[in-house]
């Protein structure tokens, strides 16, 4: 059986998210980080960035809008002058006036007023990684000397609030967080945080053991989300939660499947490594090792560019295996209509192959949320979120 419908593996040819690794280096050494080369202080050269955006803007995959996410390392390690030059390059090369939105996901420890001024000039979307109160945050998010980073991150939150700059927070949920729904909710409210996303700790890349692997935490995760949803609903207008907006949107809109799954379709997400390496599908694949798939590098901006990716043999192999995995999800999982085939990186790192179906990530990040959302909607139709 050949699950590849055509040579481009079914891509609709729309690049929507470009993840750019300005540097793989991170000044924080989180215990659950997936990046294998986060001690490297390499920085993407301006020549590479210029070649990258020439390739992006001239590629057959670009549409009238594009989100550029600076991540896969701590982006603020590269100083603000670097981004001033880089953004000028991008603006100069954007001859078709494509609507480019920049996003930065940062640990916040290097944030200062210069950064905020720069963000304001360019309408940069900011996400701060903050896991809640010190006993939750500092347990995993430590600097390279082993010390906690909570105080510095909270300073960044305060600075953003004082300067009236909007931001969201991403919190990684670990086993210790699951009994702290009320504490986390109070923490966000106390610190003026009104937009939150939860990532459940995963087995990915360098992080080969999760705090969730000891026993099945499905019910604990459902209980957390059930409690947290109750808190959000009983405090209208206080807190928006990405997971709730996403799952209720998917459930109540039967056209959700039209949007497909960005991680299983090539070129909808493109990840660019510090030396111009090109990858696609799940962004977490960049920097990871695989002899079979040649480390998931499908080309380079200096050789072949974006257009050359889909003709690479290892790209076709990955694509075929991902499509087989989606097929298996479709055949075996009753949540398929809402999940659309899961996350290839999680399948690879957890199950050892893309051509597989269920993962721990599925059970905790998808199924648990769908379960509590359906329960909630079946109990009463009225719903007010955020």
């Amino acid at each position: 059986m050949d699950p590849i419908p055509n040579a481009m593996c079914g891509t609709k040819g729309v690049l929507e998210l470009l993840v750019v690794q300005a540097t793989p280096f991170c000044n924080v050494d989180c215990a659950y980080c997936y990046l294998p080369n986060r001690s490297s202080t390499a920085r993407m050269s301006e020549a590479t960035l210029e070649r990258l955006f020439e390739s992006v803007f001239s590629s057959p995959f670009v549409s009238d809008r594009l989100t550029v996410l600076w991540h896969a390392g701590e982006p603020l390690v590269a100083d603000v002058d670097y981004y001033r030059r880089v953004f000028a390059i991008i603006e100069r090369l954007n001859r078709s006036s494509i609507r480019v939105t920049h996003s930065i996901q940062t640990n916040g420890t290097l944030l200062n007023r210069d950064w905020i001024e720069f963000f304001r000039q360019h309408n940069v979307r900011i996400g701060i990684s903050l896991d809640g109160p010190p006993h939750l945050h500092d347990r995993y998010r430590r600097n390279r000397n082993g010390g906690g980073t909570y105080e510095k991150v909270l300073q960044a939150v305060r600075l953003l609030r004082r300067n009236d700059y909007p931001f969201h927070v991403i919190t990684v949920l670990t086993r210790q967080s699951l009994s702290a729904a009320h504490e986390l909710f109070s923490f966000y409210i106390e610190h003026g945080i009104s937009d939150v996303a939860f990532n459940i700790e995963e087995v990915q890349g360098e992080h080969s053991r999760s705090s969730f692997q000891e026993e099945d935490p499905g019910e604990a995760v459902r209980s957390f989300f059930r409690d947290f949803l109750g808190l959000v609903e009983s405090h209208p207008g206080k807190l928006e939660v990405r997971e709730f907006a996403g799952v209720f949107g998917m459930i109540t809109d039967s056209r959700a499947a039209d949007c497909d799954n960005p991680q299983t379709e090539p070129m909808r997400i493109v990840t660019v490594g510090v030396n111009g390496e090109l990858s696609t599908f799940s962004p977490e694949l960049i920097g990871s090792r695989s002899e079979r798939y040649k480390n998931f590098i499908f080309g380079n901006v200096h050789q072949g560019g974006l257009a050359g990716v889909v003709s690479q043999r290892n790209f076709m192999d990955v694509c075929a295996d991902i499509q087989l995995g989606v097929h298996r999800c479709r055949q075996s999982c009753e949540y398929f209509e809402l999940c659309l085939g899961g996350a290839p990186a999680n399948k690879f790192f957890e199950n050892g192959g893309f051509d597989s179906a269920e993962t721990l990530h599925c059970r905790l990040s998808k199924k648990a949320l769908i379960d509590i959302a359906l329960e909630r909607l079946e109990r009463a139709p009225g719903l007010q979120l955020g």
Partner: protein
Amino acid sequence: MAAIGIAPAAVPQPPPEQSMQANSIPERLRIVRERFGTEESQDIKRDRPTVRFTQWYKGR
């Protein structure tokens, strides 16, 4: 619940809708959707993928 293992791809499997049970996720989804209708605008439909990507991506 979904099977943890995976069936060989070559073995024909009934699509989920054919084996829909009263309390299955697809059936519960159908009932909830009927109750809500699908009143979102085409604009929201168009915007949804971008919203999902940018909000979805897992910064650490």
